[in-house]
């Protein structure tokens, strides 16, 4: 596939395109799952385990069942088929079977006439349990344990996944290195905290079909999980994705409550809604893993990176979720944006008796990157080289292959560094700001769509888009791509409008509905722009064929001599001679009837042939270089990030409004992980399952963000585009971490960096007698 820059007549792509559904959202008319009413709908509620780890000896639900107004009570045995987002690690059940594995695990469910009755019924369920050991820390589970959380743990331990990779000769590289640095990072878990709580509605109808409306970002995987666990063929299940109020990865696994809701609907024959309280959402979690990593980097005498030696110990929580991918990513996503000739990685993800962690925005690349970028900052300082120069020297060149066989096509990383260096006034500021003020550089690298579809053989398309246009001239677009706020509906519509040459308002993106939407794998791994974009472009180009044929016929020429204008097709050799879109359409319909077209995308084959080689392969990668400037109150440890210069390579930005929004939102989310967000566990117990105590930054904490989009066109991305939804988060964290060092001379390796930790760091520096900027 060749890159196609937007045609000279580009009206939309590359500009600022307000969201097509924006008017519905600002008026409260956009329909989210909880807004849907079905006749006779029941309330579904789940009972949660109050124990960290327990064998379920007996559950007595008789009194709950007998309560008037209760329609169904479910326990785990009814639907025991295990599921999970990855086919290789099906270790979840809709409701706990045999034992429960964390405080909050679902052990029963009811459907009742109203909320009060449902809760009264739950209170009547009696559980007889045998307490089992609590494993709240991954270090407790790396050896064989008395009671493994899952039978599938490695050799009787709680290790869910172990990855050992070695490319080149790391020991030799370190032995011959001129300089080495090591950073051991500790990262609290963080969670998505999307504003729309998890919610599902299900309805089983007498025609033998099941309809499920759910706040999901991956309708297709939900579809599969429902079929597997409920034992119903996929064609008898219809999954609908209404508007979704944010996901960030937290709505990408098929989740137990979605299956529970469907099961309750089947049991009762009535529509059932399961709406989670915010506390339920925190227990469902699947957020970024609590992680400890150990990153060692070696440089040769010229400042070339010669090796990475990385370890990661990842706290998985009670289930696998995306964990196998997480375990790979925490190593292999170090393979950019720098050349690394020797690489060794040992990663272990360990089950714990805590809410499961999973995929969260910039999955697997965030904590790793923080430690790498701090280590590079240390090396720059040790070798007396400017942090920019060190990175420029080691930047991966375009069209290269990494040591683990990632295929790098486009990269404008060098341009990112140069732009942000100039704009930030780096040369005048670095190590020159007064004590307490600092500036820091952090970089980023992320996949633009996982090359490996989770459930497909690589031969099947990862995205398909269908178009239909009838004599009214409106273009209906069907695809299972999942807009969760990132603007993919808008991009889909804009690509179609651009290629077909019509007004955006002619294009109507249809609600995701598995009955009519062709499969797209959904919103995860920052894949949508790249994959759906290409599918949409192909579909629109295919739709254009009969339109141009009809126009050519009407204009007395051949299709190759017809150009696409705005709502008009015209002769290239006589631009004043043209036909309108509707004339061409109606001409084409005389022979074909309503037009339909289909386009799809599959990523090219790539990656090595060793075990795990596909993890981290992507048809393109994004690159970033951020500089943060901040001020620290050295007496209280409080700090304010005042400015971030964000240079990002997303190839060509197709909708600048959306790209800016993704970068600003990513910086906000990254800042949260640096400054205060944490899943605050004491032992296995989550202490802050609320938006009051989970510290998402406020508007006053947002820095001024200056965005520098310097990417050059990607050869395979639609119109040259790459991802901008997840990668922009990553560089935020190390930019702030390195700026803190510049400000006060302390390397913070434990996140979040709360004010008390800042003071502790300053105390330690004072104790060590290391003055900084004269203090």
């Amino acid at each position, binding site marked *: 596939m060749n890159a196609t820059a937007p045609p000279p007549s580009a009206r939309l792509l590359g500009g600022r395109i307000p969201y097509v559904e924006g008017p519905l959202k600002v008026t409260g008319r956009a329909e989210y799952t909880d807004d849907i009413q079905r006749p006779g709908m029941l309330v579904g509620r789940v009972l949660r385990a109050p124990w960290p780890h327990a064998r379920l000896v007996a559950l007595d639900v008789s009194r709950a069942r007998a309560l008037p107004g209760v329609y169904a009570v479910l326990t785990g045995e009814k639907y025991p088929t295990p599921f999970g987002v990855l086919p290789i690690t099906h270790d979840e059940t809709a409701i706990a079977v045999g034992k429960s594995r964390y405080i909050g695990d679902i052990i029963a469910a009811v459907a009742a006439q109203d909320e009060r009755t449902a809760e009264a019924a739950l209170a009547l369920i009696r559980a007889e349990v045998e307490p089992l050991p609590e494993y709240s820390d991954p270090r407790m589970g790396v050896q064989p344990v008395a009671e493994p959380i899952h039978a599938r743990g490695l050799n009787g331990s709680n290790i869910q996944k172990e990855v050992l990779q070695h490319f080149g000769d790391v020991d030799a590289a370190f032995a011959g290195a001129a300089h080495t640095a090591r950073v051991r990072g500790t990262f609290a878990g963080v969670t998505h905290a999307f504003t729309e709580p998890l919610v599902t509605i299900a309805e089983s109808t007498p025609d033998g079909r099941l309809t499920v409306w759910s706040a999901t970002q991956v309708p297709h995987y939900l579809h599969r999980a429902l079929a597997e666990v409920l034992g119903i063929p996929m064609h008898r299940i219809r999954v609908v994705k209404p508007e979704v109020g944010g996901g960030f990865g937290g709505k990408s696994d098929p989740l137990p409550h979605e299956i529970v809701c469907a099961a309750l609907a089947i049991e009762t024959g009535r529509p059932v809604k399961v709406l989670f309280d915010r506390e339920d959402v925190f227990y469902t979690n699947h957020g970024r893993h609590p992680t400890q990593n150990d990153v060692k980097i070696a440089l040769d005498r010229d400042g070339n990176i010669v090796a990475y030696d990385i370890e990661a110990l990842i706290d998985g929580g009670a289930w696998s979720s995306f964990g196998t991918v997480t375990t790979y990513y925490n190593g292999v996503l170090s393979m950019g944006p720098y050349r690394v000739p020797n690489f060794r990685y040992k990663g272990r993800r360990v089950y714990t008796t805590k809410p499961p962690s999973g995929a969260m925005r910039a999955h697997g690349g965030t904590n790793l990157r923080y430690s790498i970028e701090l280590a590079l900052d240390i090396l720059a300082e040790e070798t007396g080289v400017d942090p920019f120069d060190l990175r420029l020297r080691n930047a991966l060149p375009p069209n290269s292959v990494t040591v683990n066989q990632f295929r790098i096509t486009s990269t404008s990383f060098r341009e990112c560094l140069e732009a942000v260096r100039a704009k930030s006034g780096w040369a005048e500021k670095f190590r020159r700001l007064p004590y307490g003020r600092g500036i820091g550089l952090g970089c980023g690298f992320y996949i633009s769509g996982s090359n490996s579809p989770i459930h497909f053989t690589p031969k099947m398309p990862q995205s398909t888009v269908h178009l239909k246009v009838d004599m009214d001239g409106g273009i209906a677009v069907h695809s299972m791509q999942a807009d969760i706020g990132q603007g993919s509906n808008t991009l889909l519509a804009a690509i179609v409008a651009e290629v077909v040459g019509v007004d955006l308002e002619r294009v109507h993106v249809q609600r995701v509905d598995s009955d009519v939407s062709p499969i797209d794998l959904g919103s995860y791994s920052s894949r949508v722009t790249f994959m759906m974009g290409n599918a949409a472009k192909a579909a629109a180009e295919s739709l254009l064929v009969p339109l141009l044929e009809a126009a050519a016929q009407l204009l007395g020429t051949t299709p190759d001599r017809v150009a696409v204008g705005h709502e008009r097709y015209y002769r290239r050799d006589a631009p004043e001679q043209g036909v309108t879109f509707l004339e061409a359409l109606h001409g084409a319909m005389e022979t074909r009837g309503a037009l339909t077209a289909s386009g799809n995308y599959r990523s090219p084959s790539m990656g090595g042939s060793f075990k795990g080689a596909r993890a981290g392969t992507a048809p393109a990668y994004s690159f970033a270089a951020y500089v943060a400037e901040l001020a620290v109150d050295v007496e209280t440890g409080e700090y304010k990030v005042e400015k971030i210069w964000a240079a990002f390579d997303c190839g060509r930005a197709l909708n600048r*409004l959306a790209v800016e929004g993704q970068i600003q*939102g*990513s*910086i*906000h989310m990254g800042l949260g992980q640096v400054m205060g967000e944490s899943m605050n566990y004491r032992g296995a117990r989550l202490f802050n399952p609320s938006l009051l105590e989970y510290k998402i930054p406020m508007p006053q904490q947002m820095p001024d963000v200056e965005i520098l989009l310097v990417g050059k066109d990607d050869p395979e991305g639609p119109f040259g585009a790459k991802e901008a939804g997840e990668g922009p988060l990553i560089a935020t964290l190390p930019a702030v971490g390195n700026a803190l060092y510049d400000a006060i001379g302390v390397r913070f390796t434990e996140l979040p960096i709360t004010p008390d930790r800042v003071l502790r760091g300053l105390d330690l520096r004072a104790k060590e007698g290391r003055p900084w900027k004269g203090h």
Partner: protein
Amino acid sequence: MSEAGLLRMRLNGHPVVAPCEPARILLDLLRDDLHLTGTKRGCDLGTCGCCTVLVDGRPTLSCLTLARLADGHDVTTIEGISPPQGLSPVQRAFVESGATQCGFCTPGFIVTATALLRDHPHPSRAEIERAIAGNLCRCTGYTKIVEAIATAAKDGA
């Protein structure tokens, strides 16, 4: 519903009578009984601001308001703020500035911003930030929301 009585209020400019027990929360009454689903249920504990409505013109967390206390009062929801056709200046600014992404927090922000600009037609950036600091947005980093409100102010919303 032995405790139930009838609640009478003006809702979006029109009189409404609804059965309502004392423990009914205004948000639940609006969404579940009256099917005005533009007002969103995000945290149900007064933290996210997604449920903001106007009571006698005052921005109010409907999740922390007993519906009965709206008896005899004016309640305006996002549906009441929206003109019958088209968009209000604040709404238009939100769309055009990209201040809405997932949109779930947006009705709350629109209500808050509308009240802000009614009382303070020319707020400073700091005043805007302070005024919206009870509405949680997880998508935008607030930047474009602040811009949208500033734009609406400039355009004389």
